[in-house]
């Protein structure tokens, strides 16, 4: 049994979903200097997924994110702990952040030097775990209640 899909919500979702994802990535990247970070970014991406769920139900979230729920969680923890562990191999304390800055070709003239830090990778791990959490939530609770209606 599939309920009626709302045209307005469907259209709005089509517009909003990519925008929200982009916004979540923006939050992830700027997190070091402005409000944001992996946690907020992951939540925004999760909210985007929730929007797809509201518009089209369980099947919609499955097409939006085809990965198995455990995969994002595992990849996130692995990325974060991996970033933390690499300094150990180089003889530094755990979780030391490495930094570098580089001048990108072509657009470098306008935006100047770009600061890069391994913290970004760590934050990406947090992002993945949070997104995985929301995905799991929708898959389990969402699909369950759908069947019982």
């Amino acid at each position: 049994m599939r309920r009626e899909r709302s045209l307005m919500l469907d259209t709005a979702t089509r517009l909003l979903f990519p925008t929200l994802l982009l916004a979540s990535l923006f939050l992830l990247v700027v997190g070091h200097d402005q409000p944001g970070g992996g946690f907020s970014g992951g939540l925004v991406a999760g909210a985007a997924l929730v929007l797809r769920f509201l518009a089209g139900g369980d099947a919609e979230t499955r097409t939006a994110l085809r990965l198995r729920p455990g995969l994002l969680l595992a990849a996130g923890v692995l990325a974060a702990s991996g970033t933390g562990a690499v300094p150990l191999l180089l003889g530094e304390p755990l979780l030391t952040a490495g930094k570098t800055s580089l001048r990108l070709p072509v657009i470098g003239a306008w935006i100047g030097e770009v600061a890069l830090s391994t913290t970004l990778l760590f934050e990406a791990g947090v992002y993945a775990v949070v997104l995985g959490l929301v995905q799991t939530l929708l898959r389990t609770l969402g699909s369950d209640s759908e069947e019982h209606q």
Partner: protein
Amino acid sequence: MAAVPLARRLGKVALLVCAAGPLAAVVWSATRAPGVIRGESVVETIEWVPGLDLALTVRLDGFALLMVLIVSGVGVAIFGYAARYLSDDDPLPRFTAALTGFAGAMLGVVLADHLLLLYVCWELTSLASYLLIGHKGAEKEQRRAALQALLVTTAGGFVMLGGFVLLGQAAGTYRLSGLVADPPDGTLVAVALGLVLVGIATKSAQVPVHGWLPAAMVAPTPVSAYLHAAAMVKAGVYLAARLAPAFGAVAGWRAAVLVLGSASILVGGWQALRERDLKRLLAYSTISQLGLLMVLLGVGIPEATTAGVTLLLAHALAKSALFMTAGVLDHAAGTRDLEELRGAGRRSPALALTVLAAAASLAGLPPLLGFVAKEEAVSALLDTGGGVGVLALVAVSAGAVLTVGYAVRAVWLPILARGPSSAGPDDTGERRWEAPGPAFLASGAVLGGTGLVLGVVPALVSPLLIAAATSLTPLAPREPLHLWPGLGLPLTMSAFTIAAGLALAAVVARRAQPVLRRLLPAADRVGDAALYGVERLCHRVIGVLQPGSLPVYLTVILATALVIPGTALLRAASPGLPARATDSTLQLVVGLFVVVTAVAVLRARHRFAAVLVLGTLGYAVAALFAVHGAPDLALTQFLVETVTLVAFALVLRRLPSSFTTRRSPRVVAGRGALAGALGLLVAMLALSATQVPNDRPVSEFYLDEAESAGGSNVVSVILSDFRALDTLGEITVVAVATLGVLHLLRARREEDEG
């Protein structure tokens, strides 16, 4: 770890590949042997937590060398044997991994010089033993035996850990070598040694905690031959031997070990006399022999040390060879019952010879290594004299008589007796017999043959054994071992014990079986009763502690959070109010809104309404953060609130819309009061935390250092850099909890559908 995929791909060949591990240990220790025998010791240390004096220290001295050679030498033979014993139906990846892991952990036990490292390896061997006894896990008997062995040995190990800590604190060092060189004393040390002794007794299956060992005989025979004859059960004896020279004088140690060992000698030997199952007979014999070793090595009689280490080697060789032949018989004839095996071994002369050589060594017959060990033991104890010496001598002699008795039993029916004397009605005359291949026999034959060679030419192994004994105590006898001790009291006593043992075997063979069975109830049943008692107790306790009601849990948790810090706060000076009530009017408005929604939550009749109001409350708090100048916090709070709301909504679709039980006003008021008090507490804590006089608040440090960490958003920098370890821990918790939810809900759905 690598053993699992290896065994998946290679099957049984993986066992042979993994034998390289123990083989490498043999080769490595052999290269160190000349130096160690001269009395040097090899020490390697890896500092782990220097501040806590935690280090991975290994030390190879004479005794450790002997143990390494036994553990790894027998190990190589076992791996070869297991490759023939197991079939492709067995869970090979797990078996291979557990056996390899065991070999490594056991090396750790005998090489560790740090008490805590020793403990960790000790428990690892228990774990490996659990996996190996359980094996396929398909039969109830296997699971029961595996669990029993695990519980008994780890419970003992845990008690022992307590003893280790006491010892380590009393001595100021956790180094085994340092402890023995400069032993502490006092009542505390006596208590500590008592605790350690509990661990030793459980691991080496001493009476009265021996029941798990015979039960463990449901394990595949390579496991019995390795863990439960040659290696793991020797760990207790090993530790006792290490501690005895230093702590023999501490009150109670000698008496306790002597009683423990003697009781094991007698009970084990007695039970072995009445067993019909060949492997269980060997298990009881192991208990008895371990008792003997405890008496020789654990009591703290320096003169008996050389004899003890010799017996240790002799027993490891003989017993694993016997187990291997028992496994061969089992495979070939399809039974381990002594009566049914009557005459079976006659079909394979090589098998028969191996059994005879190993059993003769066990029984202490010349010209085998067991005989050399026993002669040495008797003459050493005669030299010792004194009360302890005489008691030990009596125990050893009684043990020797019993050993001859059950060794004869183990050999008589399967090997020496002629085929079935009376053809039963169901006896077709031709019994099952699948001839074992030479490779299957080889491992046992090598070990049994080693016992013979070393018995004839004890000079081959004499320097090693003397180095082992003198590394334990410098007072150990240094005379080389001889096969022929010359006519004298020891030899006379040997002849007497052998004769008495033969007589005993003859008597037991005739009659008295039912009487013996009634006299001694099988000890593992007692262990079972205790186990189920504990289980029932646990069920009751959990029933009280875990009623399964979320409101109850929450109330308990919140009340605890309120009472304990709250009391501390009230006892301290109460913080003064901040100078200004608000920074802006907007704050006041939003704050009032928060209070109003909080009250509304309490008054909600419907679940959905309650959740929505709660969500509004969350957004209001987020707004408060934003007004306060904390955009990061506000953003996060806002997003978390959204996702929580969605989760709530999804769950609520499956629940009745209004609260199922109407809440009495008193309950609501009580919960409201609890919540209000908690809120007040948090506010007070926040107030007093900001008023603690502090030269340089940590926030300034964060502000100063954030730039150097490459970011200007301090909150983010704290989360992802300064406190990154916390964040890492948190996301791990989130991931694990999510996986838990995923599987719980999936399992439920399958239940609903199935």
